């Protein structure tokens, strides 16, 4: 059976920049960070008080994990004009949620949250667990299921509720979280910058609707981008840090390129993982330079976590949504808070202002804790754009 083409026909995003994909995109183009000091964290007395909070759903809502996910899913379904009963569901609800109420912890199982979200979908219903690479892997797995004829359409993405003392103290112990940045908490997360000191944890959800291009065209659905390649790999190196030579990341990107039958010089832009950890950014930059070879000085690279924080299971899909927007518009947003590129992080970074490059084909990558890596390649659907004209 020949492989089917796969289109993105719906997207939904809740992030620190707002409750819609439009707010996410506009915030990035404006070089604005949604990371801020969170008063309830200040009140709790912990040392890390900045984060990317989703304002649209109350922090007091103990159904916050479910609510954030569901809003993104609904927005994506509405945009694609698809019903859940026609779709598979490939999703990551991330880690269990430990929210606080007056009596202490309210433990919410990620698995139960997934089961509740997934029950209205026809199937396949797969819960992805790949740490920070989950969102990207969810899209990749959905792409593969549709491409190989095992599903006609899928909702793919992820959601996370991380801004709790439980996770902030836990991640602080791993020395990967940026502590407060004096009077300007929005500057806490500085991807690829020489003053980078880790990421800002964030809540968030991102959902995409993937379906066959043929089906999308028959329905007259808007096609935002095509997914044309997916690759994954494991570092097999260390639980807490990537290999210095970026080998795991490089392998995963090369697999995505091979899957898309593209050469590296056909990549127009990169949406980087860019966590702003010292070793993570270094390894990623090394991997990208190796893959892009002679083009690494001219392929624009942008990361989103300076603006929205690190939303773990949602991170990869929120970044894929940004990549899809780049495919549609040709514009690469800036890496918010990147001012002076750190030694070893040299790439063609987009700094302070968006760059209109006419980019059509975008690589979006995620590298997870434990060494799980995922990469997808999206491209502009030119036929749809021609028809719109």
């Amino acid at each position, binding site marked *: 059976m020949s492989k089917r083409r796969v289109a993105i026909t719906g997207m939904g995003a809740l992030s620190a920049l707002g409750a819609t994909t439009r707010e996410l995109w506009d915030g990035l183009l404006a070089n604005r960070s949604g990371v801020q000091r969170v008063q309830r964290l200040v009140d709790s007395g912990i040392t890390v008080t900045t984060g990317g909070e989703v304002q649209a759903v109350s922090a007091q809502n103990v159904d916050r994990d479910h609510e954030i996910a569901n809003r993104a899913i609904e927005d994506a379904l509405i945009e694609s004009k698809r019903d859940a009963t026609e779709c598979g569901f490939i999703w990551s609800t991330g880690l269990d949620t430990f929210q606080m109420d007056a009596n202490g912890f309210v433990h919410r199982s990620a698995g139960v949250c997934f089961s509740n979200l997934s029950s209205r979908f026809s199937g396949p219903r*797969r819960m992805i667990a790949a740490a920070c690479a*989950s969102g990207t892997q969810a899209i990749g797995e959905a792409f593969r299921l549709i491409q190989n004829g095992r599903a006609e359409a899928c909702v793919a993405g992820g959601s996370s509720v991380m801004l709790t003392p439980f996770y902030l103290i836990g991640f602080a112990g791993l020395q990967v979280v940026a502590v407060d940045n004096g009077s300007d908490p929005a500057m806490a997360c500085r991807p690829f910058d020489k003053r980078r000191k880790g990421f800002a944890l964030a809540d968030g959800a991102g959902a995409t609707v993937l379906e066959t291009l043929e089906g999308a065209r028959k329905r007259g659905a808007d096609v935002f981008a095509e997914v044309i390649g997916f690759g994954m790999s494991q570092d*097999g190196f260390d639980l807490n840090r990537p290999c210095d030579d970026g080998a795991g990341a490089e392998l995963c990107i090369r697999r995505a390129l091979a899957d898309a039958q593209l050469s590296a010089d056909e990549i127009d832009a990169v949406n980087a993982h860019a966590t702003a950890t010292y070793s993570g950014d270094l390894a990623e930059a090394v991997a990208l330079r190796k893959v892009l070879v002679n083009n690494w000085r001219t392929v624009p690279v942008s990361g989103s976590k300076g603006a929205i924080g690190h939303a773990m299971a949602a991170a990869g899909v929120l970044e894929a949504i940004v990549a899809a927007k780049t495919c549609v518009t040709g514009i690469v947003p800036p890496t918010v808070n990147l001012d002076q590129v750190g030694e070893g992080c040299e790439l063609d970074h987009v700094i302070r202002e968006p760059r209109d490059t006419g980019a059509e084909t975008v690589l979006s990558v995620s590298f*997870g804790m434990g060494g799980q890596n995922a990469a997808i390649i999206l491209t502009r659907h030119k036929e749809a754009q021609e028809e719109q004209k």
Partner: protein
Amino acid sequence: MVFLIATAVKSELPSVRESAPDLWRRVRRYNLPVQLALAAADEVMRFAEDTSIAAVISLAPCQPGSEDLYRWGNVVTAGMASGSLGNLRMNPTQTLHAVDNLALSAFAIAHRNHAYCLGLGGAAGQAWCGLEAVCERFEAGEENEALLMAGDQDAAEDGARGLGVALLFSARARPYSSLGRTVCLRSVTRNTQRASGVVPHAANGLAAFLSAINDGCKSYAVPPEHTDGVSGVTINLEIS
């Protein structure tokens, strides 16, 4: 064609400590589900042709965490009540106990495995998604060997009892080690039969499935408690 080559079920750590000290050194800082999953995986990978290139599909526990992690959670609660959270530190080892892909990553590190990997989360019925993913990889001609592993515990708060299961599959026909006969995984089919009484557990369903195979079962209808509650699952095998 997908052939079942070897399986292992682990429920006790003392025997791992005694019989496999090298393995124990690798897994001792992990939580119970991960320890048991890795112990089971280690056993079946002795039958693998190349552990570094086998695809790995790993199920996260439905009851994640550990006794230590929950104890620490109570410390956080007390710290909030007394306003002393600022002084709290978390042991990074306990942070690992919350990580959903820990078994997958730990396996990859131990075996220098960079192959296809899929971490499935701790929701009810994901074991059968794992089995479907194995079939898909082989049918697409993508794999020569694949490992499916799972570990879980009855209650994370005490970490007293758990179960680890591993299954090794191959594209090449070889006798299944437990039966001495060839076991071919033909298909995993689903129906729309919803079920109640689901008991989320990453490993129990696979262990029951393995028992049925060892009894010679060729068409295994997954009991409702081991499904996701949304669809019924039947696994078809050929034993020769």
